[in-house]
């Protein structure tokens, strides 16, 4: 198999090792014998040896910094470790100074239920009754463009291992996908690969996929976004952390063997753009084996149950380099490893490759000597291969030996924690004033009923608003038997406790178009929508995770977008008083020099005391009143209507009022507790017309709707009433006998409410009185045809 990128990484490392020895010319004849080892001793003796730091992604000053830390040149092994751990992907060197805001902008209330915050593998939230939930979203964008199937599959695998490392049983996944234009021929390649990869991996793991997002936009053509989110549940006392404490405790590597896949994936893939002329980087993508991971999950849970591990860390980006240096940094600070003990899939791997390999389905644990036999018995039961690599020490140094020679001797914090930090130049984009001045308010608005009907159907079938069942039908949503809500409802919901019914809801959102217009408010709009999507399920929003997808941090305008988005999101979380518990930053998302729209994916987790109280997104009963909560304004800038009908992006996104969102969430929760709401559905992309259509299609029960009072009260025209994307709005259906109570609830909380229709079981249609009538079959036809037309028919 051709293996260009891998050979590049490998050959540079070989060069490093080779020239350190005596005569590199003998390398070929000596091919079968062992290459010389670039030990610490050799490094001290050959201070001036040239090292390929630039090819490994390090800047000259970063290389100098490493030499200053060590007081000598790094060995090739140390260089490999520093280069991956100091990459943007692992060190957050461009984002760190901004991300601090998520920790500093907090209140006592926000910290109260946060059991583990930012910095660990995933945040942990107390959900009551002795239960905790851990969740996180991460990107796997670049690998998924190069090799969509494996890239997406291992994205799921990686985030699930983060959840296991916290001591939790993974219970759900969801994915946030952004593809290029739906009619671009390359899009189908990426869509088939990504969806197939997620389906393959998560289905084999036995994790229900309960939601997510899929958007198509030409800005993602050469750089799709594949974000993967996983959720786990655990008892409070079961929390595990990634630290190596207790001198003499054993350091154990278990799971799959270490191979040549994904070498340099973290530093090279995540810090590079796709250059049409560059070498192919395909083999640098990791290959996943979900069966190995499923066995690893059950094995780890049994190890936790039997209390056999002191600390645990999954192996993801930067593999053994990351796991050893992070475990040591978070513990007593010292660790001794014999690298020869690593079980290899490919015996020809050299030390640098073993340190950098990103082979999947591996975990590293710290085990006390007394418990080692019991530990080995459990891994043997699950047929999981295991080797003891070394032990925790009190030297304060991470020391790694290879073939009897010391090849790494570093202070672990300098690798894992105290990497470079950049305050990158920030520049207000030259184009943004002009973009914001170009409002959609001046676009022609239809008044003719036929045209409005046609626009409703066009939006319903547009790539971004069309049914995503072509994708979601390839995911198992039933496994584990605890799924209380999943697509197409606004949020996913999982029962945590089978006795009490305690559960959580989760929803994610990001609107790149809004963020392009205004990244500060765009990020808050993503937060507001995810928050609202959780609230409409009847759950109480409790915590946030984020995956911040942006262009190159070396572009000052992108850095401005990033700084704005982080400020907006952290201010928003402070106002709503829900903490950010963890997440991920993905930079360099661009093709050539054109960055993607800023895409800060925000995930909100909510808690519900009994999932039996959950609220569907559509109505099922006859004669229920349909109410619109919230106010409709002329907010068409950045809307689906502007984009789909007029191919327009400009102006300023809808105003976000987080105080109102909190009030709305409180109202919905009170309604759910009193069982007043037969359904609740969030208004967002596509506005009221889209929300009503979806609520009709959910169970095939019709609605008769009137808009006159709405137009009169809010002073808006028909187009605005149907397609505006004003925030803080939800449609609910209420049984007639609960009308008085419901109206009292809205009045008591001073939230604007208007009866706009009634459900109709006899006429399965969206009937907007005096305007148009669309039968269920036509709604479904428009909504469901779009993806199969592009990507192939599936089962009806």
């Amino acid at each position, binding site marked *: 198999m051709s293996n260009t990128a891998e050979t590049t990484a490998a050959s540079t490392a070989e060069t490093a090792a080779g020239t350190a020895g005596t005569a590199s010319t003998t390398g070929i004849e000596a091919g079968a014998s062992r290459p010389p080892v670039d030990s610490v001793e050799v490094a001290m003796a050959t201070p001036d040896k040239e090292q390929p730091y630039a090819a490994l992604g390090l800047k000259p000053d970063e290389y100098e910094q490493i030499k200053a830390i060590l007081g000598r040149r790094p060995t090739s092994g140390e260089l490999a470790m520093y280069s991956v751990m100091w990459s943007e992907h692992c060190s957050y060197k461009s984002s760190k100074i901004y991300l601090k805001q998520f920790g500093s902008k907090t209140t006592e209330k926000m910290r109260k239920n946060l059991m583990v915050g930012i910095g660990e593998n995933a945040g942990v939230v107390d959900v009551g009754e002795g239960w905790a939930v851990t969740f996180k979203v991460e990107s796997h964008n670049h690998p998924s463009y190069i090799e969509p199937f494996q890239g997406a599959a291992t994205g799921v695998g990686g985030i699930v291992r983060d959840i296991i490392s916290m001591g939790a049983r993974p219970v759900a996944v969801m994915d946030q996908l952004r593809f290029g234009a739906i009619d671009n021929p390359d899009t189908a390649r990426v869509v088939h690969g990504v969806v197939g990869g997620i389906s393959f991996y998560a289905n084999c793991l036995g994790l229900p996929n309960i939601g997510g997002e899929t958007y198509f936009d030409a800005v993602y053509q050469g750089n799709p976004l594949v974000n993967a989110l996983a959720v786990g549940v655990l008892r409070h006392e079961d929390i595990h952390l990634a630290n190596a404490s207790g001198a003499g405790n054993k350091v154990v590597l278990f799971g799959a063997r270490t191979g040549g896949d994904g070498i340099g994936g973290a530093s090279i893939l995540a810090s590079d753009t796709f250059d049409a002329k560059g070498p192919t980087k395909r083999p640098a993508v990791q290959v996943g084996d979900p069966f190995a991971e*499923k066995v690893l999950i059950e094995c780890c849970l049994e190890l936790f149950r039997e209390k056999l591990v002191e600390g645990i860390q999954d192996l993801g980006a930067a593999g053994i380099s990351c796991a050893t240096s992070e475990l040591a940094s978070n513990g007593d600070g010292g660790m001794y490893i014999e690298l020869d003990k690593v079980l290899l899939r490919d015996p020809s791997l050299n030390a640098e490759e073993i340190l950098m390999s990103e082979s999947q389905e591996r975990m590293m644990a710290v085990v006390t000597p007394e418990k080692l036999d019991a530990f080995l018995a459990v891994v043997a039961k699950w047929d999981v291969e295991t080797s003891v690599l070394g032990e925790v020490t009190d030297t304060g140094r991470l020391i790694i030996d290879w073939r009897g020679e010391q090849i790494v001797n570093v202070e672990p914090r300098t690798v894992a924690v105290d990497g470079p930090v950049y305050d990158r130049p920030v520049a207000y984009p030259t184009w943004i004033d002009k973009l914001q001045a170009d409002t959609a308010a001046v676009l022609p608005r239809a008044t003719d009923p036929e045209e409005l009907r046609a626009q409703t159907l066009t939006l319903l079938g547009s790539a971004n608003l069309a049914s995503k069942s072509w994708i*979601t039908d*390839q995911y198992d949503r*039933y*496994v584990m038997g605890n799924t209380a809500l999943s697509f197409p409802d606004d949020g996913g919901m999982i029962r945590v406790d089978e006795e009490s019914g305690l559960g959580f809801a989760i929803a994610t959102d990001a609107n790149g178009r809004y963020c392009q217009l205004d990244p500060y408010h765009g990020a808050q709009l993503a937060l507001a929508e995810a928050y609202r999507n959780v609230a409409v399920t009847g759950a109480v929003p409790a915590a946030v995770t984020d995956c911040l997808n942006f262009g190159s941090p070396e572009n000052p305008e992108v850095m401005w977008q990033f700084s704005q988005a982080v400020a907006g999101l952290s201010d928003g979380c402070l106002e709503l008083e829900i903490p950010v518990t963890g997440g991920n930053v993905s930079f360099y998302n661009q093709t050539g020099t054109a960055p993607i729209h800023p895409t800060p994916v925000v995930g909100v987790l909510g808690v519900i005391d009994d999932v039996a109280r959950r609220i569907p997104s559509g109505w099922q009963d006859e004669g229920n009143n349909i109410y619109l909560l919230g106010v409709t304004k002329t907010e068409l800038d950045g809307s689906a209507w502007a984009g789909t009908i007029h191919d327009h992006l400009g102006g300023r996104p809808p105003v976000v009022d987080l105080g109102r969102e909190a009030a709305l969430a409180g109202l919905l929760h009170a309604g759910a507790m009193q069982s007043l709401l037969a359904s609740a559905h969030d208004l967002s992309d596509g506005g009221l017309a889209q929300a009503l259509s979806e609520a009709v299609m959910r169970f095939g029960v019709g609605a008769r709707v009137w808009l006159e009072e709405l137009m009169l009260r809010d002073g808006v025209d028909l187009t605005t009433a149907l397609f505006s994307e004003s925030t803080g709005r939800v449609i609910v259906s209420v049984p007639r006998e609960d009308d008085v109570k419901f109206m009292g609830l809205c009045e008591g909380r001073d939230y604007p409410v208007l009866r706009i229709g009634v459900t109709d079981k006899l006429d399965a249609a969206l009937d907007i009185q005096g305007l148009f009538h669309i039968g269920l079959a036509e709604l479904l036809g428009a909504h469901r045809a779009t993806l199969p037309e592009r990507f*192939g028919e599936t089962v*009806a």
Partner: protein
Amino acid sequence: MAPRIGVVTFPGSLDDRDAQRAVRLVGAEAVPLWHGDHDLHGVDAIILPGGFSYGDYLRAGAIASLSPIMSEVIDAAGAGMPVLGICNGFQMLAEAHLLPGGLIRNDHGNFICRDQRLRVENTSTAWTSAFADGAEITIPLKNGEGGFIASADTIARLEGEGLVAFRYLEVNPNGSMNDIAGLTNPAGNVVGLMPHPEHAVEEGFGPDTSSAMRSGTDGLLLFTSALHSLLARA
């Protein structure tokens, strides 16, 4: 004493705990069994659950059908013990030749998850006796390799002898011959099907029905059937 129904966990089993829950919900005792043991722990019936045992390597169910416990399962099945194979479990039963035919990649090539309409074609088996003749039910289906195939002779025999236990209605989701969703052996104690009855046993977590979201519990009757046949025997 409540009948004891064993659920075998293989490496890669996914719906084992769901099957145990279904067993408990009808009032039987669920007994976890381990694939590597040669011990049925005195159970009265056995369920081979869904999942991707051994990663579906070689062929779905092929490696699991050779697991240590399968020799006891095959003996027990021969002696008349009720055995139910769900999805991957059905694939194992076919690989172990307890049921005829085989399961291949879905004709459309994709994994498919949907609420599937079925007709119960044979209500005289240990796992279907509680259904009314010709009952139509909706339970979740989720598989990548659910296409049932068999030789023309075998198909003719299955049809002629009434050994088709479940048949797909409305939509054939995977290209199965004769819309076959599940089979029984002639004795009626061994039943296998691709759809998942254990995912339609609890209101709030099953398929949607016309009356309420996720309220479908049509799968319960398979487990009730087994309970009844075991109690009748006792």
